[in-house]
């Protein structure tokens, strides 16, 4: 699924990385525990979360295979987060949907999680 489609499905606003919306994501992960994201066994190209702190971007950066972070429930990440994401080439979006619904909508539209599902 292309990031542009993710944006459509989630009625999301792109906060940084507009130029990368044609990139594909194969899997997604919804979590507020970065420890869980780090313990995942498979690559997660898209991270949906309700946490808005710099460690979300750091986690994505360290894993190296998350190309997009979607902040749910209309949460607005700060400038520091967007700057860090931009320098790590990570696309950031925000959606008004809560985490459960956002994950459900993407799953219903064909996006799956990795082999640790």
């Amino acid at each position: 699924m292309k990031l542009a489609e993710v944006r459509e499905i989630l009625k999301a606003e792109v906060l940084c990385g507009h130029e990368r919306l044609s990139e594909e994501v194969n899997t997604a992960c919804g979590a507020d525990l970065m420890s869980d994201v780090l313990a995942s066994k498979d690559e997660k190209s898209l991270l949906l979360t309700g946490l808005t702190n710099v460690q979300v971007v750091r986690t994505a950066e360290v894993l190296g295979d998350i190309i997009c972070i979607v902040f749910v429930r209309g949460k607005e990440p700060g400038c520091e987060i967007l700057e860090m994401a931009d320098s790590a080439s990570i696309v950031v979006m925000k959606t008004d949907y809560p985490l459960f619904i956002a994950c459900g909508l993407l799953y219903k539209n064909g996006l799956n999680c990795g082999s640790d599902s």
Partner: protein
Amino acid sequence: MEFDVKARDFSSAGESSSAFRKTLLMLSVPSDIVRRASIAAYEAEMNIVIHSYGGKMHFEIYSDKIVIIAEDTGPGIKDLELAMTEGYSTAPKEVIEMGFGAGMGLPNMKRNADVMDIVNHDENGTKIVMTINI
């Protein structure tokens, strides 16, 4: 490579692991090895930030292996067996609100390293040595 890690400095936590990861990528280390080493380093670095009074992350990169040494001053690990149990955590609420302290750190480090030795974990601090074969 060696980096100082400050206790409770959440805004710069993970910077040494990030720099380490960039170096591994620059050296064309295979991506699965980079992923495992980066996760192990980041978990160790977060442990220093969360649980200690401060410490150091030390990275050694050889042609056949990567060695990560996380050393801190602090209270040490009181019950190592419990600390190695997934889900067991002594992290304060503020840390859990940051998305960490879920009791996955040490087990996740062990999972990603080929060898993990907890060299000491007494009241003077903790030293963890992890080796990842290339």
